[in-house]
């Protein structure tokens, strides 16, 4: 790293924040809605809780045991489960909805505040992680050097 460039990370979110699973209702997928202290200065509590509650609702919908899931299960059993090779299950459909919702939330709410949510499926459904999305690049002293270095830094980041 060139000594002329300093990287300054957002101080309050140097690490990632992980929201763990809430097992109070069994093994169904549900995340804790307790607001972590590390995010206090970054995002409003209500927005955070809304996001996590909506995610929990989506997962509850995916794992709901009801008429449709029984039908799917019985049909699958009758076809020796070969139907899973051809058809997209309800769970997969809901996962796509979740991915779209997370992308939307990132674009509208979290990215402007310098945060990013990772889809829990990427972490084996163990955690929802909030990460710092922005790096602030300062080029000090020599501006011409800074421009060249800043450009190189950008290219290097894109390489990575």
């Amino acid at each position, binding site marked *: 790293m060139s000594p002329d460039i300093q990287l300054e990370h957002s101080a309050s979110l140097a690490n990632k924040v992980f929201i763990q699973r809430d097992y109070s209702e069994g093994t169904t997928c549900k995340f804790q809605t307790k607001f972590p202290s590390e995010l206090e200065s970054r995002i409003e509590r209500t927005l955070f809780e809304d996001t996590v509650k909506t995610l929990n609702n989506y997962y509850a919908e995916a794992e709901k045991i009801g008429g449709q899931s029984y039908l799917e299960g019985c049909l699958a059993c009758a076809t020796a489960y070969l139907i899973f090779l051809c058809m997209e299950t309800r769970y997969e459909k809901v996962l796509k909805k979740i991915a779209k919702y997370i992308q939307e939330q990132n674009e509208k709410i979290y990215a402007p505040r310098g945060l990013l949510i990772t889809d829990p499926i990427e972490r*084996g459904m163990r955690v929802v992680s909030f990460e*710092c999305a922005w790096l602030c690049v300062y080029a000090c002293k020599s501006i011409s050097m800074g421009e060249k270095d*800043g450009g190189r830094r950008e290219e290097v980041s894109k390489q990575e």
Partner: protein
Amino acid sequence: MKNCEYQQIDPQALSTPTPTPPPHAAAAESGNEQDKKAKRPRRKWEVFPGKNRFYCDGRIIVARQSGVLPLTLGLILVTSGLFFIFDCPFLVKHLTGCIPVIGGVLFVFVVITLLQTSFTDPGILPRATPDEAADIEKQIDNTGNTTYRPPPRTKEVLINQQVVKLKYCFTCKMFRPPRTSHCSLCDNCVERFDHHCPWVGNCVGKRNYRFFYTFIVSLSFLTAFIFGCVTTHLALRAQGGKGLVFALQESPVELVICFFSVWSILGLSGFHTYLVASNLTTNEDIKGSWSGKSGAEDTTNPYSHRNIFINCCSVLCGPMPPSLIDRRGFLPTEESAQTSSAEVETPSLAAKNEINVVGGSSQLACGLQDSPSPVPAPPNSHQNSSFA
């Protein structure tokens, strides 16, 4: 004068390895050396840390030891083959033409469900990334010092008013979710772990339990059906005048196999029917987790719906959860080019603590992302994103 430039950088850029200073990056810009090293993008199954084997480019997953799966398949094929060749013609002539049809349907069911049980991901949990592992280890210390040390072995949670202990898995570096167990043969944590079945050569867990159950139920029907047909065949031949001994000589193999297997398989089906009806796993039943054998007073199964029908439906007809290990996803190209274990290096952070604690973790555990954009892509997409 400061020239402040804001740019949105992929968070994974913070955690992707940067082992060498900028001259390496400058060389990478030309691309030639990198291209030579990382010729073909590797898929995640190629760096999977557990003891599993993969076929068809990651589509099929089996345990490292196939156990006696070939024997199981062989026994089923031989017995059914002998049945169709020797017994069916006689019975079709003397009884009804439905017999080979019923036998055929059962046989197809058995083979398909057996292969699905063996080749499906049983519900393997991917290992924790170094960031997550460090986060768990950091949480335990409440005195205000940020130290990293192994967490306590167990953590208690309340599930439906029942205290359940979650154990910390030192291999996977996470607290195991409820009903999850680490299989030492496969070296993976498996959700809703039932048992590791050598007959099918795979673990039986959340995702393939319904295949396993259908397999043993249809196998017990098949063996009982073949046993019944062979006995009927022998009885009819003995009545025909040639005597029982002569008739026995004609089909001894099937009789022996079916006689010995029908009791054990019927017994196993009965046992698993009981487990399904009470929403238990073999693991929990053997350990006596909820029956009070382990010494705790007044323990009840917190996962049971208290209704046999609902228990059966939730276990067998519940929604099919997705595979959490993205076998066919691609590794980022610079990760696949490196052979040594990746080091998570974040400028100006105390990353060296993380390395001391979780050093030596596999590439997969380092949090792989396919998409260069900040929002990760869905897990089963087959993207080949290059960072060059």
